[in-house]
């Protein structure tokens, strides 16, 4: 019983706090102009009915965690263990299995799924880039989307004035420019110890967003559209969605390839050393400030290139690209997937982008056989699932912090490091 007391108390607290909103209703009385409070339980019942699948999902996750602890499933599957070490032979060949599968998707997905997967690819790029700074080097960045928007706007503005400035020229140009931007921004704050970078990048992203939503040549809040000639276009019998998908997929593979090579090189080891003990790293000859600057510039450069790709596939750019939410969700992808684990953050990006999208799509299935066979109350609650995405997301994050602080594919070593810091 004592075990459950905090949970029960928490539930009671939530019930007390939500009581006026869920169970009461204000009814204006037109005859004497007063407002009466009336007992209206249907709201509350509706709310808890909607939440039923969430509870069920939580129960499932809980059982899963128990089972995992009992039978060590995650160690048996051991995706992490094999992928993390550069020496395991089969892990060298993953690309030859994954690449054809992913490229088959070009023909396997319908247009709307292709667009979705292209977006997933762009988020994977962003997560890969942010992982270099946050996961490998251990620096917190809170305004990563600023560099993403920087790349996108650089592309949009230049192509408006230059006329011919297609994405395949813009992306290689935006890459070093983004890197330069990161370098300049990192220069003053990376020379200091502590999390100054987090605040400075946060400020940068917000200032950038305010600026682009208030200037004329950036199109204000509406943003800018990208001319058809400069976008990703249909080519050789492929639709433009298919081309965008292939291009983004190839860029993701390229990025994974190079990031992994850097990670398993003296540079990657220096990054990890800085994360683990900055003073010791500098004492064994690692130029800490330079390596941090390099990591951060590379992150910024990848974000800028991803920004160009996003503009080229969507055909427009807008200030929503660098909302605070955006930065945080990229950070959440990195943390959920596993700080410092390249494959983990890819998984994190896919999950965090796809799950809410598919939750939204659940409501489109209401006439399907599966749904009509469900009892009414369950059906209604499944249809409302998307409304609760942030609630579910929050709960998942809390569970992650409790049971897997190292992320889905993070190593158990990393967990020890976090817990014993």
């Amino acid at each position, binding site marked *: 019983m004592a075990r459950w007391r905090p949970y029960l108390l928490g539930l009671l607290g939530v019930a007390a706090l939500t009581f006026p909103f869920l169970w009461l209703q204000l009814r204006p009385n037109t005859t004497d102009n007063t407002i009466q409070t009336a007992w209206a339980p249907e709201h509350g019942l509706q709310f808890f009915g909607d939440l039923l699948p969430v509870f069920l999902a939580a129960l499932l996750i809980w059982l899963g965690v128990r089972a995992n602890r009992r039978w060590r499933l995650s160690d048996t599957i051991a995706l992490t263990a094999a992928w993390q070490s550069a020496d395991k032979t089969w892990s060298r060949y993953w690309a030859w299995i994954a690449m054809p599968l992913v490229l088959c998707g070009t023909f396997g997905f319908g247009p709307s799924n292709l667009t979705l997967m292209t977006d997933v690819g762009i988020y994977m790029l962003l997560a890969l880039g942010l992982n270099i700074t946050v996961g490998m080097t251990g620096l917190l960045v809170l305004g990563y989307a600023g560099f993403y928007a920087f790349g996108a706007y650089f592309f949009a503005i230049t192509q408006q004035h230059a006329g011919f400035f297609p994405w395949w020229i813009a992306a290689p140009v935006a890459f070093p420019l983004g890197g330069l931007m990161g370098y300049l921004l990192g220069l003053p704050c990376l020379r200091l110890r502590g999390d100054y970078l987090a605040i400075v990048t946060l400020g940068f992203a917000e200032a950038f967003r305010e600026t682009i939503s208030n200037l004329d040549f950036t199109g204000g809040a509406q943003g800018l559209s990208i001319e058809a000639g400069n976008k990703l276009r249909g080519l050789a019998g492929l639709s433009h969605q298919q081309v965008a998908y292939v291009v983004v997929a190839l860029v993701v593979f390229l990025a994974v390839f190079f990031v992994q090579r850097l990670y398993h090189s003296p540079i990657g080891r*220096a990054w*990890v050393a800085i994360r683990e003990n900055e*003073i*010791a790293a*500098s*004492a*064994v000859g690692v130029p800490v*400030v330079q390596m941090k600057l390099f990591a951060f510039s590379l992150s910024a450069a990848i974000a800028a290139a991803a920004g160009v790709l996003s503009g080229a596939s969507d055909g427009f750019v807008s200030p929503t690209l660098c909302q605070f939410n955006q930065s945080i969700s990229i950070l959440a992808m990195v943390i959920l997937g596993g700080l410092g684990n390249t494959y983990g953050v890819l998984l994190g990006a896919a999950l965090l982008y796809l799950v809410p999208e598919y939750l939204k799509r659940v409501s489109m299935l209401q006439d399907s056989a599966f749904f009509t066979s469900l009892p009414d109350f369950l059906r209604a609650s499944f249809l409302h699932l998307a409304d609760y995405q942030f609630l579910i997301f929050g709960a998942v994050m809390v569970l992650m912090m409790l049971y897997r602080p190292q992320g889905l594919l993070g190593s158990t*070593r990393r967990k*020890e490091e976090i817990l014993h810091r």
Partner: protein
Amino acid sequence: MSALLETRGLSKTFGGLKAVQNVDLCVGANRIVSVIGPNGAGKTTFFNCLSGIYRPDGGEILLDGENIAGRPPHQVCRRGMARTFQNIRLFPEMTVLENVLVAQFQHRSLSPFPLLFRSPKFCGSEHACREEALGFLDFVGLRAHADRISSSLAYGQQRRLEIARALATKPRLLLLDEPAAGMNPQEAIEMVQLISRIRERGLAILLIEHHMKVVMTISDEILVLDHGVPIARGAPQQVRNDPQVIKAYLGEEATH
């Protein structure tokens, strides 16, 4: 005898506390010099100034005649001075081998193309570094533990790993900050043997140690600090009988 390391009037203050005052020290090539003194005498602060972790307020640090005072730690390391820490500072999540590999950073070529495309030359150097790192682990007796996570090592092993890591930077002068701290007599003897073997490799060693047996056995010269001030220096026998040193360690005799 030419001095490898020489400090002239080295000083460091924290607010009103004069942690290190006017320390002159000379370490010749391939010599073992110890710095001793009661707790809080400023020994570790002195080391931190030497290795660039603190910026000294005054004085010069000459390494092979070049003043390195105020240079950041990695540049000091690059010039041939490596150190270990009193409170062990390993990279806890990395394996034992990786800990040593990190320390080879300054000897590695970082040209992007060979590195990104794994040219034969890069692979060759990666392989050679691995072998060399294993050699250092062998030297300190940790080769069998190369693939273990460094934080899972026993305390004495972690100390030896720190030494292997410092050696991997290929220094000419090694600063050891209490390498035998917390060790039992047997382990302390092994540490003495290890330090002598390091010296046989041609390195000079500057040592902070509380273990008097260790200090007296291996030092060529001893510097005694008290409240940041050098109070005695000389050969072990000489220092052992110095009245000021005895006073600093045991307190003043009652004079009535």
